[in-house]
């Protein structure tokens, strides 16, 4: 397909009534005539004019337009379906959602804000109010409207779209109740309240509650990596403090600890403790987080702090892994930066390196001598095949502890600071972390990457500078206040879509793991959300807290080769895991997941050659689709709903029409079965989640 499905048809505004302008003019002119009062309550009585239906003036042009030829419907819409459609398609006339009322033959709704009434009686549709000049208008029959009600794309209201877009930046979902809350409270105050929400269940506690810390018959969990994966999906899907979790997940892609790299005894507990650290400090202090991470056993394994020892006469040297990445990835980066994140240049126009290998070798001395913490008694195993005690999980969940005799007493000279070798080791670490924390690079370096994770791949330098300044001081002289930093990122004009930065407006590709989290939180049955593994065996897989290296799933400076981005120098980090194999694996993963839920299965076992599922329903990760199944008979309403909650209204009209038509073509007998309903919902959702308007968050 060579022409754009978006560009060609988007301008057609197929959902706008031809007579809109005329009606708007009428409405303005006639407003003085009354016909509906401001402040009228929702249960306003039906005006007398409604009674004389035989005197209604026929006005077939008011809300009608030629139906889309592809959307042929035999069923008649109910009055409710028609009025829902009218509200969404003609929000100017019928603002805000009104409740159905019944009087005599009418089912009707009253819209106090516009003063209009909309009613259905005996198969015909009536309008009364300022929009009709105070005269009862017969705008057509239900049959006239059926093709549009069932087959026509409906716009997501601008207010809903703005609220949903904001929600998807600060958390994982934009469920209807959340959209309503943001609209009602205003985004800033809603956000402030969410950021105050207390931390929900600790992941370490969850592990224990679910038996993954048992030493007995479940001793297989002691080294199994899978509980770490179950744990993080469970957290991302179910914790109520979703804004905190969203920030913590972004932090997990910056301070990378990975269950692949932290494998070993009690890896699940180690990852749970790491996640708890991120959650606990997400809206706390960067400096404290840095210190706690430096003593975290998962970090100790990932970057081999564990068992790094002092240099000795045999030529042994302290392990440099953590010292290097602490500087390169977690704090200051490789080159000196301006406050706006651009690289500083020396008088000869060259970049200025922040550290050299001597700095690394020296800093490495600070992190020598640490080993597993806990100090807790070993636990007996009641597994008869176990002939020894098992180490207590506390040894990876407690901070690492110092073995002073393994600690280097050599003087440390790094970044122009001298730290005496004789200083108490923990104080030494504190001083070293202070030096890094106070380096002017940290603000812009950290700010830019958090913006990339949460808002856009290509923030303007001015945006980075605004956030870096908040990092440097929260307005009360405190440096590294993460609550202030995240809040500033989300409330910034550039995040709120009020930027003229053209690169920033490209948005970002949504992270594959976030799509799965969004699906689970929006549709799935909470109690079924267990033991999900994710894109197992897929390519370019993205399982949270399971990056293949400390460099995360993608680098902040990744420019996809051979694309239109490259000549402009635009980065698109998430494209580092976009390729022929991964885009295919993504769709192959969604197809059974959306319809059947998840279980560890070969997908060919559950779909026959016609794509009908033949397996039994799964026990894990089932979708309820409580709000969607009732819409299965109305593709227009279903797609409108999904566009609202999944895409913040970004789905192009042409794409909506394609999805509506495809869903409308699926079987829909007079008494549709549960399977037929689910087929339709899953199809609509699969198509939405495959569409670039969904995948790219602008």
């Amino acid at each position, binding site marked *: 397909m060579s022409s754009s499905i978006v560009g060609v048809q988007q301008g057609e505004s197929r959902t706008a009534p031809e007579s809109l302008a005329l009606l708007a003019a009428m409405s303005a002119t006639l407003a003085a005539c009354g016909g509906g009062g401001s402040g009228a309550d929702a249960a306003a009585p039906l005006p007398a004019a409604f009674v004389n239906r035989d005197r209604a003036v026929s006005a077939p042009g008011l809300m009608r337009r030629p139906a889309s030829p592809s959307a042929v419907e035999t069923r008649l819409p109910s009055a409710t379906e028609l009025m829902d459609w009218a509200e969404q398609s003609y929000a100017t006339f019928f603002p805000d959602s009104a409740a159905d009322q019944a009087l005599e033959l009418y089912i009707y709704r009253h819209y106090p804000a516009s003063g209009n009434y909309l009613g259905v009686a005996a198969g015909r549709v009536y309008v009364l109010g300022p929009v009709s000049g105070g005269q009862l208008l017969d705008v057509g029959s239900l049959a006239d409207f059926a093709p549009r009600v069932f087959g026509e794309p409906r716009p997501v209201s601008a207010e809903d779209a703005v609220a949903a877009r904001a929600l998807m930046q600060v958390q994982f979902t934009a469920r209807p109740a959340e959209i309503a809350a943001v609209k009602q409270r205003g985004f800033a105050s809603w956000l402030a309240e969410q950021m105050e929400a207390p931390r929900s269940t600790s992941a370490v506690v969850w592990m224990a509650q679910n038996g993954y810390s048992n030493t007995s018959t479940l001793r297989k969990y002691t080294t199994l990596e899978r509980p770490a994966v179950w744990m993080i999906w469970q957290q991302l899907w179910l914790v109520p403090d979703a804004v905190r979790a969203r920030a913590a997940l972004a932090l997990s892609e910056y301070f990378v600890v990975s269950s692949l790299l932290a494998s070993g005894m009690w890896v699940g507990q180690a990852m749970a403790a790491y996640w708890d650290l991120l959650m606990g400090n997400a809206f706390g202090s960067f400096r404290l987080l840095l210190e706690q991470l430096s003593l975290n056993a998962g970090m100790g394994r990932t970057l081999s702090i564990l068992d790094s020892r002092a240099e000795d006469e045999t030529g042994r040297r302290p392990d440099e892994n953590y010292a290097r990445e602490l500087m390169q990835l977690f704090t200051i980066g490789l080159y000196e930066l301006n406050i706006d994140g651009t690289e500083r240049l020396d008088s000869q126009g060259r970049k200025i390196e922040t550290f050299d290998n001597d700095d690394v070798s020296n800093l490495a001395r600070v992190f020598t001598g640490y080993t597993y913490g806990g100090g807790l008694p070993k636990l007996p195993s009641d597994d008869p095949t176990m002939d020894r005690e098992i180490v207590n999980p506390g040894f990876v969940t407690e901070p690492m502890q110092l073995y002073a005799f393994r600690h280097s007493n050599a003087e440390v000279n790094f970044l122009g600071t001298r730290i005496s070798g004789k200083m108490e080791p923990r104080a030494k670490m504190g001083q070293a972390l202070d030096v890094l924390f106070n380096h002017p690079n940290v603000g812009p370096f950290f700010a830019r990457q958090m913006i990339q994770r949460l808002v856009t791949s290509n923030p303007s330098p001015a945006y980075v500078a605004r956030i870096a300044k908040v990092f440097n001081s929260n307005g009360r002289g405190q440096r590294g206040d993460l609550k202030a930093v995240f809040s500033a990122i989300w409330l910034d004009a550039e995040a709120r879509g009020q930027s003229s930065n053209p690169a920033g407006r490209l948005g970002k590709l949504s992270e594959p793991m976030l799509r799965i989290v969004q699906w689970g939180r929006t549709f799935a049955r909470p109690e079924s959300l267990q033991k999900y593994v994710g894109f197992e065996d897929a390519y370019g897989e993205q399982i949270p807290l399971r990056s293949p290296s400390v460099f995360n799933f993608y680098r902040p400076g990744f420019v996809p080769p051979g694309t239109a981005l490259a000549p402009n120098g635009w980065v698109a980090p998430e494209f580092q895991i976009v390729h022929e*194999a991964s885009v295919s694996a993504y769709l192959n993963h969604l197809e059974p997941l959306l319809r059947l839920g998840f279980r560890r299965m070969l997908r060919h076992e559950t779909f026959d050659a016609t794509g009908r599922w033949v397996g039994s329903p799964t026990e894990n990760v089932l979708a309820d689709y409580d709000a969607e199944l009732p819409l299965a008979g109305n593709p227009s309403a279903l797609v409108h709903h999904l566009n609202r909650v999944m895409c913040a209204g970004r789905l192009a009209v042409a794409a909506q029409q394609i999805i509506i038509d495809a869903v409308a073509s699926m079987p829909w007998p007079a008494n549709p079965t549960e399977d037929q309903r689910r087929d339709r919902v899953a199809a609509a959702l699969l198509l939405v989640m495959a569409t670039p308007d969904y*995948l790219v968050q602008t």
Partner: protein
Amino acid sequence: MTGTKLQELTRRAFLRRSGQLAASGVALPLSLSLASLGEAAAMQALDFKALVCVFMIGGNDHDNTVVAFDSSSYERYRAIRQAVALQASALQETALSPTVPLPGGRQYALNPALLPMARLFHQQRAAVLLNVGPLIAPTTRRQYEQRVALPPKLFSHNDQVMVWQSHRPEGSTVGWGGRIADLALDSNGQSLFSCISAAGTSVFLAGESALQYHVGSHGPIRIDAMKRPVYGSSRVSQALQVLATSAQDGVLHNEYNRVTTRAIAAETTLGAALASSNVQTSFPTTGLGDRMRTIARIIGAHQTLGLKRQIFMVQLGGSDLHSNLSSDHGRILREVGDAMSALYAATEELGLADKVTSFTASDFGRTLSVNGDGSDHGWGGHHFVVGGAVKGRTIYGVPPPVSVGDTSAADDQWHVGQGRLIPTTSTDQLASTLGRWFGAGESELAGILPNLHNFGIEAAGVTYPTNLGFMG
């Protein structure tokens, strides 16, 4: 001369040199569009060649890969490496006896896990390249300390991966594998399959024109929902195809759909070609083994696909062994050696042994000194090149002294502390040697390898030939 004309001329020169232009003079399209995917092979594959890069992500510990083995070097190695030193007794079977002994009585043995590699070496099908790494120009320790022109961001993983592959740090968009492939696009009927990654996105395979195609470890991945009805509906399947492949206004939107579009078309074409390309050679049942087998099958299908030149990239993680070197390094090397050995056997089966050359690469070498049970980030490192066209049973390059001292002694001028080797063979020299065999000309290589002009000289007693000679 316009750029286009120049390009055209260089392409023709490339084809002529590699014996490809044939009498036909058929003008082959340069198109990278999918239109070219389905076209029939326009030229008989008289002369097929392929390069396979095996990239060990993390920085391979070269000192325990190619081990200093003459007694004086080994003793120094053992003294420095302590607990992670390999036992001499374990190295007997993999000791290398090159056709021409190294000067100064220097000897090497391979890690015991690399027994198949040692066998290929003695069959003259493999060679060792000592101390390879990125350089701007020949560099001494003194020059390093004076901060002469050095590759950017030395010792940093992500950047050195990029520098190895593209001569530029993170953010780079074009690599030398892709640039060499650019030259060969005309000779390939289906240019999308010129550069194939069997694991991960790498800049190595990205050219100015050449794109990299990602194949799954067992072959191209089919999108089920586009091959049959979805939830019983073929309309849904069709709609999926339209939504996921149509052109988009948004830049990111469009790039995403371009990838999906390529995935669908390529799976169809490659899947069909592979259906009739089976390789009997048994491959190890490892991740790398699976991917190598897929590469071998694609090579086996080159005639069906109309391909004359291919570059493959396969990556293997886990080499960043700051700790657990003793326990984990052998496993990784075994996976590499077994897979490369199986690939060689498969190319013999296909009658293409002298048409396929594989080689190892890594972020960097590591320190010779140890931090307990591992080593830290270094610079130069030792590598392998395997294939029937390789002048094997030879150790190329200069054996570095085994020393970690920070003194003015001659032995300490080869490293920059803790035995981090200053490369004595640059990646440009390696690339130019492979590229020349592949059919690229001098001027083209000079354009692709920005620092090549700094080599081809002798400096501080070391020669830096632009043709290392291992490809004849």
